């Protein structure tokens, strides 16, 4: 055992390989678990059973769906740009995998500890736009292009409130490092209590950033058939779905780390935390947030595009700016 630890400590390449294969496993597992939960929960919301055939309560359904997607032929439309068309799903998936590297599952369970973890993660998150734009453009389908254009406008508009609401917290902690942000919340205090406006703005904008209903305009089914991935089938479609759930996980974990106290146990009780329990608390909070997003998705209709833009530019950005100013003022006084 010591021998293995020695190797991992000595050779950073081994560490990178191990952590990356673990991260990709986590992303895949997350997509499978979330896909299953989404189908089951939306079925319950709609008074259906959901998947029931494969395994007890259909728990193997998502694995078999993955196998089915893998077995499918990759069809490139005749007038599409084949290079970019095949590139887009990978471009969509890679930033997600890279962003997972800095997510702190617990005090000691993370792949990389960056001083600018928060900035790095947001930068990786915004790369998603390029993949969607490339996917929409290279498909040579008008609906795909519509979805891609909408997505770009939407992501640009909603990154600003996300950044501003996170900055309000960073002003207090004076650090972009996830560990320090969480350490700041080790007591009774979590940031959702003293920054409720920023928390709500972050949740709404995060919902829009990950293209979830009611802000799922890039893939608005009844208007654009499927939006930017209309032409994709097989596992390139699967990669988009995995990346979508990965982005959802990233957004929820940022909210958990920054606002909900990360791996800390509830109510600041020390004996509830620890390396293993920390992961448990972290995942619990992340999954509660993701389930709330699922709940919202299967309840609300979709907003219109101008309303979506109005929400960001007229409400979220001014409110988060005011919130930031007030926070700066209070921090200065104290």
């Amino acid at each position: 055992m010591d021998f293995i630890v020695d190797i991992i400590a000595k050779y950073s390449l081994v560490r990178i390989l191990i952590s990356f294969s673990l991260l990709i496993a986590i992303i895949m597992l997350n997509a499978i678990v979330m896909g299953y939960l989404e189908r089951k929960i939306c079925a319950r919301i709609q008074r259906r059973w959901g998947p029931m055939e494969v395994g007890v309560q259909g728990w193997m359904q998502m694995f078999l769906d993955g196998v089915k997607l893998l077995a499918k032929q990759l069809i490139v439309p005749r007038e599409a740009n084949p290079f970019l068309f095949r590139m887009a799903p990978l471009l969509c998936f890679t930033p997600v995998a890279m962003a997972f590297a800095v997510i702190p599952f617990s005090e000691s369970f993370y792949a990389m500890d960056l001083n600018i973890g928060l900035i790095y993660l947001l930068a990786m998150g915004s790369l998603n736009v390029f993949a969607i734009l490339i996917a929409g453009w290279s498909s040579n389908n008008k609906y795909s292009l519509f979805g891609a254009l909408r997505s770009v406008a939407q992501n640009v508009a909603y990154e600003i409130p996300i950044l501003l609401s996170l900055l309000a917290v960073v002003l207090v902690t004076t650090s972009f490092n996830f560990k320090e942000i969480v350490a700041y919340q080790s007591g009774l205090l979590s940031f959702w209590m003293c920054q409720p406006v920023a928390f709500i703005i972050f949740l709404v904008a995060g919902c829009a950033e990950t293209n979830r209903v009611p802000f799922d305009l890039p893939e608005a089914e009844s208007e654009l058939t499927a939006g930017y991935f209309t032409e994709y089938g097989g596992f390139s479609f699967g990669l988009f779905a995995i990346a979508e759930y990965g982005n959802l996980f990233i957004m929820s974990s940022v909210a958990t780390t920054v606002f909900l106290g990360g791996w800390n146990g509830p109510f600041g009780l020390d004996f509830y935390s620890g390396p293993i329990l920390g992961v448990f608390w972290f995942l619990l909070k992340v999954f509660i947030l993701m389930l709330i997003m699922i709940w919202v998705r299967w309840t609300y209709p979709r907003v219109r595009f101008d309303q979506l833009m109005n929400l960001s530019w007229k409400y979220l950005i001014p409110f988060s700016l005011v919130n930031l100013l007030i926070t700066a003022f209070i921090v200065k006084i104290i």
Partner: protein
Amino acid sequence: MGTLTTRFSTIQDPDEKHKFLLNMGPQHPCTHGVLRIVLEMDGEYAMGIDPILGYGHRMHEKMAECRQWSGFYPNTGRIDYGGAIPYNHGYCALIERMAGIEVPERAEYIRVITVELNRIASHFLGVGAYVIDLGAFTPILYMFDDREDILDALEDITGSRLTYCHHRVGGVSKDIDDLFIKRTRAIIKNIRSRFDMYDRLVTGNIIFQKRTKDVGIIPVEMARRYGATGPVLRGSGLGFDIRKNEPYSVYPEFDFDIPTGENGDAFDRYMVRMLELEQSLRIIEQALDKLPDGPVMAKVKRVKLQPGDCSFSVEAARGMLTYYLVGDGSNVPYKLKIRVPSYSNLSLLEELCKGSLIADLVSAMGSLDLIIPEIDR
């Protein structure tokens, strides 16, 4: 995409080069079936709208001219599969008017009960599909839950669930029993108890209101110009309903209101449909209370269609349905013209949505509650 042969394809004006054609349908999620719309788009705005019909054409009117009038009867249930019983009713009443057949009172009551049950089922279908157009997938499954009860009840007496053949010239084919009456009363109670939930889930939803209010406004004058009927016309504020304005069957004996909207926007049309559910429930309740005893079928001799013409209008779920029949003395119709409500309601679309966002187009079109095969016939 291939070449599009529409009236827009001749646009060569260099100022209009940034415009492009978008082909919606015939297999697009929001066109509910086989409507094809070619849009001339300027960014997200639809500047030109060209509905193309005919993908669900089944030659119903020609089929009527090629067989005995009784042979055409099953077709009537297939014209509008969303709400088929009023179509059966209209055709039977037309033949009865032409041949001068008196229908027993109990049969008329049963007809009204089935028609109104079917109207409720049809409105649930239309409203649920509309909410799906706006992006909410859940309400339609609750509405189908209620619709399922109605279909089960109708299946018991008519034998079918979607395309019915229950009404007959001279009455109805099967009497209703106590079980059906008990069941229908339970359905009425159940649906009434769910109105509150629909109000909270759909009507009161802020996003739903933002998507429907002030979208697709049809002024009364415009609705009249296009001959729009049904909830589309009533949503504009004109309370025109064949059941009141041109009473047929036993409708005069019931007490019910005609709900109307105020602004004529998509929300009003939706509200009219939801309010009509309650009125239909009232009619069914009164019909069950007053249901007389007696036979359900008159003695009908072989019907020959008299030389001359005859027409009959009923209020179908989507508006005014008129059958116009020309007879020549044989038992094969010389000509049968069917005036369906969705056709006039669709013809509004171009004027209604010109220059609107594509999302508003979807919202406005969904609120017209079109059944495309009915338009094509």
